[in-house]
């Protein structure tokens, strides 16, 4: 396994280390060119979002205009309405909220528990078990698709939300993420002090570890929520359009018979807005979380 060396969790408001240092040892300012290149990158990053809004707000006769209209048209809500009639996007949004909420909550809880044990508790086979945990990241999810599908059929869970929730309730990435954070953020003395006071491990976990782990838990929760919201392969296998998540609904929009492109775009926009809203509000924290040594989970 390649070893990751996550950077230590940063204290909020801590000034960034110097980098790109000149003779005098001061941090270099970005030149004009730096800003120009960054602006181009940001434009490319954001353009597809803008395009989606343009396409979702035009009528179908206008969508294929070359060159396109550069300002949104007035048909947005009409198209939203049509998209909601074509696929059950309303139900899909509720379903995705339930699934992503449960998966995020479960992952955060179990990852914090296991991460604390791997970071601060001594027990036999600790390093072996940790190695196993990281090794599980190598298993491609395709390996599980068929047997899980049969398992869910046997359990009678097909097309029910629990079939999407349970398999993703834990993540090796989450365990590793919490362990790395707690290694640095949780002083050994606090755990020892709890022991001396006669507190049980669980009590120490609840009253000492959780308050300290809270920032990392929030970041892991957000990352997991987004990943779960955007999960695609397994939901389209096990769910049908009767009980879809947002991704299943979008898949139906794209591959089903929907009369026009602007309605497809309106549905896509509807399905993306909630995550986008989370991202815009909490973007700074998400950036911080990824920079704390996040890896693709």
């Amino acid at each position, binding site marked *: 396994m390649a070893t990751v060396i996550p950077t230590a969790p940063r204290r909020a408001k801590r000034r960034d280390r110097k980098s790109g240092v000149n003779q005098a040892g001061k941090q270099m*300012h970005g030149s004009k060119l730096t800003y120009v290149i960054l602006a181009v990158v940001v434009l490319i990053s954001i353009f597809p979002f803008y395009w989606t809004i343009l396409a979702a707000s035009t009528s179908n006769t206008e969508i294929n*205009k070359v060159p396109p209209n550069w300002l949104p048209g007035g048909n947005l809500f009409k198209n939203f309405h049509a998209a909601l009639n074509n696929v059950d996007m309303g139900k899909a949004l509720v379903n995705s909220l339930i699934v992503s909420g449960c998966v995020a909550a479960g992952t955060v809880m179990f990852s914090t528990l296991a991460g604390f044990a791997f970071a601060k508790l001594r027990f036999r*086979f600790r390093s072996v078990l940790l190695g196993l945990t990281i090794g599980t990241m190598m298993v491609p999810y395709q*390996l599980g698709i068929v047997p899980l599908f049969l398992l869910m059929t046997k359990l009678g869970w097909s097309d029910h939300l629990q079939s999407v929730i349970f398999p993703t309730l834990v993540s090796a990435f989450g365990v590793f993420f919490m362990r790395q954070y707690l290694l640095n953020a949780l002083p050994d003395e606090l755990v020892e002090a709890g022991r001396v006071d*006669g507190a*049980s491990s669980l009590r120490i*976990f609840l009253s000492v570890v959780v308050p300290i782990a809270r920032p990392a838990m929030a970041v892991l929760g957000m990352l997991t929520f987004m990943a779960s919201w955007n999960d695609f392969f397994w939901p389209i296998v096990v769910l049908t359009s009767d009980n879809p998540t947002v991704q299943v609904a979008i898949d139906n929009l794209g591959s089903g018979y929907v009369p026009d492109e602007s309605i*497809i775009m309106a549905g896509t926009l509807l399905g*993306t807005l909630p995550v986008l809203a989370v991202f815009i509000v909490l973007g700074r924290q998400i950036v911080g979380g990824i920079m704390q*040594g996040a890896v693709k989970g």
Partner: protein
Amino acid sequence: MAVATTESPLEKALPPPGGRSWRSRRARWDLKFSPYAFVSPFFVLFAAFGLYPLIWTAWTSLHKVELENPDQSTWVGLKNYTDLLSDHNFWNAFRNTFQMGVLSTVPQLMMALGLAHLLNYKLRGRTFWRVAVLSPFATSVAAATLVFAQLFGRDYGFINWVLHFAGIHAIDFQNGTWSAQIAISVIVTWRWTGYNALIYLAAMQSIPAEQYESAAMDGANRWQQFRHVTVPGLRPTIVFTIVVSTIGASQLFGEPLLFSGGGSNPEMGGVSRQYQTLSMYFYERGFTDQHLGRAAAIAWAMFLMIVLFVLINTLLARRTRSAK
């Protein structure tokens, strides 16, 4: 990997075993067993939804099993695997996966490195730039692909409209081989470049400033500093992102599945399977043709390839480290 000792200083501090007090015995048990309880949810759930499928798939790949009747199986030994070797659709999918993996990973990581370097300057509105380059990461595969499929449209697509200014004739992205693979790689690159740039940026900031200072003292210019201080400092991170991106690329599924923009069999990956990946072929075998044994063999072949790749990478990384 050191095995943790079971005697912690703390255990010595506790009253000796055999102490009659029930409290101390409970504390001792707690110390011994609670760590296992804390890690058990992960392992229990992984056993049910990770390990069991792994073993089941291995077993099934040695049998003939049909989706209509999954409880009936006939032992066929390695036939599913030997059939794969002579199956040109499998090799086609393998080649496509490899090509798109290279097309989407190599430029992506290079751009991410350059972008991280720019973000590392002292910038006005630092947080804004970071959040903005990460924004594609917030979209889903499905949403991004539908939008890009429109942008790459043949007759009215925005990209062809831009290209015509450069005097390039309209390209039929969906039906070409290279053009479709490049278009799909662009979607992957668009979604992940900012994310990897932030990972590189974090690693760059943990390189001590003294290293740059001493390089500057030695008269190294900016480019030399980047080459001789930044890149060596990022080596473990670069190896890591290569491994993770490659594992991701080997499982490419959603983008090519939706890129065709509908049609009856999207898992075929275009009219002549010109962008069908291994994951899509796996899906086609398992759920369209309903041959579970064959699908299982494809999944295991993928797993073995990933393990092999990670091993080679780890060895190479060790080699370069010891060679230094």
